[in-house]
């Protein structure tokens, strides 16, 4: 997102468009990225319950994908994924 100049923004830091946090792609903060192993996933959706960023997309009661626009790579999903399934793996997302 291109950052705006001082003449282009509402005064005093007021947010005048409700719900515009959706434009802020916090996925850019990520260092580690969760990878989904479809073959091991049992669709228990514990990851979906724990994800603090609503970045687990579920359709018809099943895990479909991560929303990488908002996944900050915290790794809670990988930690909570049942040991026997072990369907989420954290990998380095970028060079540090």
């Amino acid at each position: 997102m291109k950052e705006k100049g001082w003449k282009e923004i509402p005064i005093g830091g007021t947010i005048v468009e409700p719900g515009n946090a959706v434009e802020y792609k916090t996925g850019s903060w990520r260092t580690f990225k969760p990878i989904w192993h479809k073959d091991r996933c049992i669709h228990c959706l514990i990851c979906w319950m724990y994800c603090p960023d609503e970045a687990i997309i579920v359709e018809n009661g099943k895990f479909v994908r991560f929303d990488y626009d908002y996944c900050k790579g915290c790794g809670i999903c990988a930690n909570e994924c049942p040991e026997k399934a072990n369907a989420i793996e954290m990998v380095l997302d970028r060079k540090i």
Partner: protein
Amino acid sequence: MSTIIGLTGNEAVAEAMRQINPDVVAAYPITPQTELMHKFADFVANGKVDTEMILVESEHSAMSASVGAAAGGARAMTATCANGLALMWEIVYIAASLRLPIVMAVVNRALSGPINIHNDHSDSMGCRDSGWIQIYSENSQEAYDNTIMAVKIAENKDVLLPVMVTLDGFILSHTLERIEILDDKQVREFIGEYIPQNHLLDINHPVTIGPLDLQDYYFEHKRQEAEAINNALEVVEEVSFEYSRLTGRNYDVLELYRMEDAERAIVALGSTAGTVKFTVDSLRENGEKVGMIKLRLFRPFPYKEIYEALKNVKSFAVLDKCISFGYGGPVYGEIKSALYNYQAFIPAVNYIYGLGGRDIKPTSIKKVFDELKHITKEGVNGKLIHYLDVRE
């Protein structure tokens, strides 16, 4: 039509507030401001205003309530002084940075310690960097007039900043004066209806006020604030002109008193300006070419205007009823920097005076004018910062 009545400075400001009829007033008592809000509370109790009056538990809360009310789109006012203003400190900055046009009377009193309830300017001068517009009043008439003008200045769309109207504690706040009061209708027409933008109670256009603002946008918002207070200079001039036409009382950012051919000048603000005028008149009778510049607007600082006013004098003194420890008087510093901007060098000295309510007499003002004679002749030899009427 105007009515002439006798009022103290506190009563005059309360009367202006009654006529303004603000939506919300938050108040906490502190001497010498107490009587102002006492009087206004009477108006509320007697149904003379529609104001929601909030009696809070501290000045920090008084300013917080004013901020909340203004963020909700209300015309909000409060008043305080000295230690009360110091307790408000955190929220004073927030009011300006959220761009809320709150109007506050500051009944100038020394900021402790040792504790003292009498007048100097150390309270409001401490707020000079807070983003508030500051207007100083020479007498209670001006305090009344400035309070009404402040509403219109604050709410101007190119400004949208809070305004502090000051009056000297006790010297003005508790002294009965002849005051000309406008009709209620004239005041209400002059200030007009307040139409707030982007406020919290506009449920059809929900907004968030005061969110976290980090490295990416904080600076841009401060840049806007700097622009707004610079815009205020012209707006103060416009509103003052409009008010002059209504009342016949002329206001500008400065008042020049017998400056046409003045060789020596004193710059002062607040009630002392009246004492200096009296002294100028008596020295003028002896043929001395002396004059006075009264600084009405301290923030934004009228650099160009003060240079224009001083450029032809041979020497001048700045009277400061406040001390910035380790430097000198805050007004002195600003005026010297104004002259630097225009590459003018005029011998100038600073007199710190009146701290903690020490009386300032015409004889003391005369001493300053006499000293300026030497400075005109010999330049400034020695100290720049002097302390007027302090015992050795």
